[in-house]
Structure formats: C-alpha cells, structure tokens
C-alpha cells in the first residue's frame, strides 16, 4: 500500500497533547474546513478568562489596600481586631503593591502566589489577635472564615489548570464536549478501517447504538438509546474517506444529536498493530443539563467512546466481545441491582 510512503500520518503520534497549540489539525493535505457546527476552542479563549481573573484580583487588592490606608480604625472595628492602625496601614501598603504588580502582569504566577503569602500572614495575624485584649472573637471568627475563602480563591488562581486531553469542554456551546480516545489493536490498519467503514455493523460493538441503516455510500441513519431511556435519531454523513487511514463524519442538521468527528488508523510503533484514534465533538440533546444527566446514568460520551473502542478491539482481535451478561449467579442484593457497576444485567 502507498500509505507507508506518506509521512504526515506519523506526526500525529502520541505526545501532542502536552503542547496544545501544536495539536495537529484533524484534516490533512493543507485543507482546513470549519469543524462542523461546533467551533474549535481557540487556544486564546482560556487565556482571556485567565487575564480577567488576574485583573479582578488586582483591583480587589488595590481596593483593600486603599481602605486599610485611609480607614485603619474602621477596618479594625469591622474585622474584630484590636486598634492597630500602624500595622493595618502596613498591610494596606502590601496589598497596594500586590495589586499594582498583578495589574501589570495579570497572568503572573508569582504575583498571584504573593497574594497567597499575604493571606497566610493575615490569617496568622488573626490568630495572634485572638489572644490579644481588645479583640472581638466573634467578629474575628467571621473575618477568618471570609479570609479562608479568599485564600482558597487565590490558591486556585495561582495553580495552572492541567489539561485532560481525553475530554474537553467546547467553548460557546453549553455541555458540548470534545472526546479524544485511542486504543492499540493487534491487527493491520486496513482491516480495522474496513470494519469501521461498514457502518451497519456498529451496533455490534457500540453499546448505545441500536441500529445504523445505510442510506447511500456516504449517508446513514442512526438510532440510539439516550439518557434515561429516551430514543435519539439522526442522519450522519461521511465527509472524508481515506481508505486504510481516516474517516470523518458529521451529523446532518435537524437530528437529535449534534456530533462530528474523525477516526484515524495509524500504524503503531514497532509494528505492534494499529493505533485507532477517535476524536468526537458532541452536543448532548439538552445541553449542559443533558450532559449531567448522562454522566449520572453512566452514559457520559467520553466513557462511552472508550468502552466502545475496547469492544471494537475485542471484536477485531478475538472475534467476540468479552461479557458476563446472562451468566449464572446467586441472589443479588438490591444495591447490586440498582447500581449495577460491573455486575451483569
């Protein structure tokens, strides 16, 4: 097959998720089309939110700083501290410095952590004040609670979010998710592709899909089980078809489930079969609420894709799907029948 001479498929090997900006576009040959109805999350979108958090914290610091500088006695009264004007003014100066620093560099981790350090000093001060005559313990306790909340907020702002490449929320669509899953199958890429191209066989390994009817070479009609016993139907179209390598699909407008995605078949390192990579953008029928319901009932799309891929692998490698459904067992408890986590139905 000519595939082995095509280099581009190699660059998509495991590893890109560590560098989100270098994630390969799912389409090759330089042709980039809009990704269905779902917009690809901009790498900057996250950063903008990040800047806003930093700026908000900066102005909060500056506000607190000015209040401490101008009205230390009122602050002391309100927070239950003894009358320590000089100390409170010093805190005001610290807060101002923090605020200005953060305003100049809102995404800086160091300035954010300087706020956490300040919070720690203030909490210590509250502890000392509790044993000092002239303090009001009940107000001190309330202040400490509020300050603990601010500390938690500062710590979370100072910690960088880690990506979970297998599931991402898509910006701009409530509940919409991108699912990335891959699995290694001990069969040639061509064989895996051919099985996958025959969409009518999907119900054999996709748990939630009840039936797939081919309409023509590229279009098909899907019926699926939805969350909480609902039925879902939609039409799907294959938008890209590179035999032995890549299939892309997207749902037609007007169906119950918006979804689009791709599956690629890449030779695994060392001739160890085929890496099957699925990327699916998915919008549940009832937006965020629908996604939550689905998760509660164990029908979260990321987990579903993972299970389906595993079954696909079992079918490709062994010709059957491992199961215990229908096996014998003794009387089950009510708990096992209600939440049958791993227990055969």
């Amino acid at each position, binding site marked *: 097959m000519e595939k082995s001479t095509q280099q581009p498929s190699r660059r998509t090997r495991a590893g890109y998720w560590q560098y989100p900006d270098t994630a390969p576009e799912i389409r090759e040959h330089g042709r980039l089309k809009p990704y269905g109805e779902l917009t690809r999350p901009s790498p900057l979108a996250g950063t903008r939110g990040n800047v806003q958090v930093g700026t908000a914290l900066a102005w909060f610091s500056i506000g607190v700083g000015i209040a401490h500088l101008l009205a230390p006695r009122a602050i002391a009264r309100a927070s239950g501290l003894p009358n320590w004007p000089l100390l409170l003014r010093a805190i005001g100066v610290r807060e101002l410095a923090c605020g200005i620093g953060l305003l100049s560099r809102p995404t800086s981790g160091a300035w954010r952590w300087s706020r956490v350090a300040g919070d720690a000093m203030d909490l210590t001060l509250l502890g000392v004040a509790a044993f000092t005559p002239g303090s009001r313990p009940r107000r001190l306790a309330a202040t400490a609670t509020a300050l603990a909340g601010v500390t938690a907020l500062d710590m979370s702002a100072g910690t960088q979010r880690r990506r979970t490449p297998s599931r991402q929320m898509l910006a701009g669509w409530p509940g919409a998710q991108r699912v990335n899953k891959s699995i290694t199958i001990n069969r040639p890429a061509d064989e895996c592709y051919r099985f996958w191209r025959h969409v009518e066989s999907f119900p054999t390994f996709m748990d939630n899909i009840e039936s797939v009817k081919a309409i023509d070479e590229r279009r098909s009609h899907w019926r699926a089980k939805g969350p909480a016993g609902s039925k879902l139907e939609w039409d799907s179209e294959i938008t890209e078809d590179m035999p032995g390598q890549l299939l892309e699909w997207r749902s037609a407008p007007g169906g119950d489930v918006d979804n689009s995605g791709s599956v690629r078949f890449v030779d695994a390192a060392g001739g*160890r079969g085929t890496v099957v990579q699925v990327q699916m953008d998915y919008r549940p029928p009832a937006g965020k609420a629908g996604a939550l319901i689905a998760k509660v009932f164990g029908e979260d799309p990321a987990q579903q894709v993972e299970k389906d891929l595993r079954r696909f692998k079992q079918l490709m490698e*062994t010709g059957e799907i*491992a199961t*215990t459904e229908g096996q*014998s067992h*003794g009387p089950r408890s009510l708990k096992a029948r209600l939440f049958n986590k791993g*227990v055969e139905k």
Partner: protein
Amino acid sequence: MKATCWHGVNDVRVEQVPDPRILNPGDAIVKISSTAICGSDLHLYDGYVPTMEAGDILGHEFMGEVVEIGSKVSRLKVGDRVVVPFPIACGHCFFCEQKLFSVCENSNPNAHLAEKMWGHSPAGIFGYSHLTGGYAGGQAEYARVPYADVGPLVVPPDLADDKVLFLSDILPTGYMAAEACDIVPGAVVAVWGCGPVGQFAMQSAYLLGAERVIGIDRFPERLDMARDRSRAETINYELVDVPDALRQMTGGRGPDACIDAVGMEAHGVGVAYAYDRIKHVMRMESDRPTALREALMTCRNGGVVSVPGVYGGLSDKIPFGAVMNRSLTIRTGQTHVQRYMQPLLERVVRGEIDPTCIITHHMALDEAPRGYDIFKNKQEQCVKVVLHPQH
C-alpha cells in the same frame, strides 16, 4: 446447579443457581469434578477485595469434563478432561502473544473499573470480584469457560484429579515465584508463608537449583510440612525474630532471593503489626504488607524479591529506600498460568513434583462453608481443601 456464593464477610453459602450457558462462540461449559479453595479466596471471604457483590459465585481453581462447546471452539471437544487456568486470556492480544496471559487486554469486561483502581486493567479472573471481570467461578457443579481454545489444558485420563488440579493456579504460582528469583546453583531462598503456594515455591526453588530453602510461618503443621515435604529449614516468626535469624543463617548477608507468599493479610508481631492491623480494619490501607517489608529488608544486596502473594491496592511504609540503595529487584504479577501448565504437567508425570502432598481435606461441595471456615481459622490443621461438586 449448586454453587458456592459470596454473601459478605465470613458468609459463603452453597445455593441453587441457574446452570451456566454458552454466551460467546469461544465458550465451553465444564462439568466440574474437583475444585479447590485458594488462599486468595480468603481475601474475598474476609472482605478485603472491593467490588464483590452478594451472589457472586466463587472459585478459580477447578477442573472437569467439557460438556458443551461454542460454535467457534475447535481445539477442545465434548468429553475432554481439562484443567482450567484461573486467569482468562484471549490468546490474541499483544500481551497474550508475549505469554503475559494474566494481563490480557481483552478478557476483562469491567476494564474501566480496574483502570480506576490500578491504572490499567489486567485479565479477567474466575470468581474474583468485579474488578477482574465478575466472571462466575468454579466452586460449582458447572462453569462457563471463555476462550476455551486458549486456556484449558487437556489432561490424560490416567492421572488422578488431585495430581493435576493445582495446575490451575497454585502450582504454577509457586513455580513462577521461584523462577522469578534468578536462582543459580548454590542459591539461598527464603519463603514467607508455608501455605500451598509457599510449599510449591520451596519445592520449585529446589527444582531450579537452590541449595538451601528457608520457610517462615507460625503454624506448626505448616512448618512441619515445609520441613518434611519441601525439605526446608524453618523459622517460626512468633518465637524467633526473622531478620535476626536470617542474618545468622546466611552469614550476615541475607538470602539471595526472598519470596512473599503471604500477601495483603499478613500477620506479624509487635507494635508495627498492631498499627497495620488497625489501619487495615478501618480501611485506611488496603493491604498489610508485613511480610513484604521483611522480605525487602532482609534480602541480600542485589537480590530478588518475588511476590506471588496477592495485593489489592495501597500499602503503607514500603521501604523503597532499601530497594533503591541496595539494588534489589522486585518481580511480581498474577501468574501467567497458561505458560506453565504443559511443562509442569510433564514434571508431575515424571514425578519431580507431587502436588497431592499439600491436600489435607476432601469435601463435598455442600461443605464449602465449613471448608472456608476451617481454612481461614487454620482449624483441623487445614492447609488445602478440595471440593467435589459431583459427590
């Protein structure tokens, strides 16, 4: 049919359940002639393995006659007398191809549960919690055996059940533990736990060329068995400080290899043991690694610590500094039974190893609850219970 079902801590019952049926084209149904209670079944009995559910059929050491086969089974035929290995392996995945059958990628239908617990999923196992598939086990009259062409070993009719039954688990487990020790002629091997796996590990160590084998336990009948049957020197850890004794016995250097045939419910003595016991009972650690710690601390520099004992999840205070600074090697894993069945069958036929020597009790299947009880509490000098479902 009758089957031994788990119902909770210290609660197993022999109950009437539906007969098993073929669910996949690669399945076979085996009419069980002999089945045993394994030491690892006691971890289920004691409630230390998560994801057990009331009604689960126990048992992963069994043999019998093939009475029905699925449409795709070609190697086995009805009437074959087979021993069934405890790990369920598909025979086609990357790991099966490397003969790492107990980490087969395809046989665990609950792989997603196992991944949460262990990162990746191992193979399915008969009657051993839903983490490893929730497959119905073999302490029953019949069992469904998936991938029948891959696992079961056909055994000749002239060998009694007792001679071949343990090829399903404990004989290969003891052997693999000894094989992992890189034994060279003259080696000294210490074995924690003189139960069935420990006995087979000691005997295998000699088969592989060890010069001295030391067995550690606290029950006189097991220490006697280690001395008489497995030709081991013995230490009773309730009477003797084990690290000190091993130092004395090995010229200050420590054994060349240490085998932990105890696992997650180790017993010990002193304050450290009381601390582990309390944490274990309160479910603040899933394993009590008393024997493993001792093995790691006493093994000679550059030696091997081999762990056939079962561990479930998280253990506290593993002296990893000893492993790193003293160049220790740790080898472990659920046994890749399919790899060892044929060669060990040949050793049994040649008389090099006699698996029957550990059996202390034969019972009808109905007596399984009593079997669990005396095996757990070491009453009637119980070392190994074999159940006979067809009696």
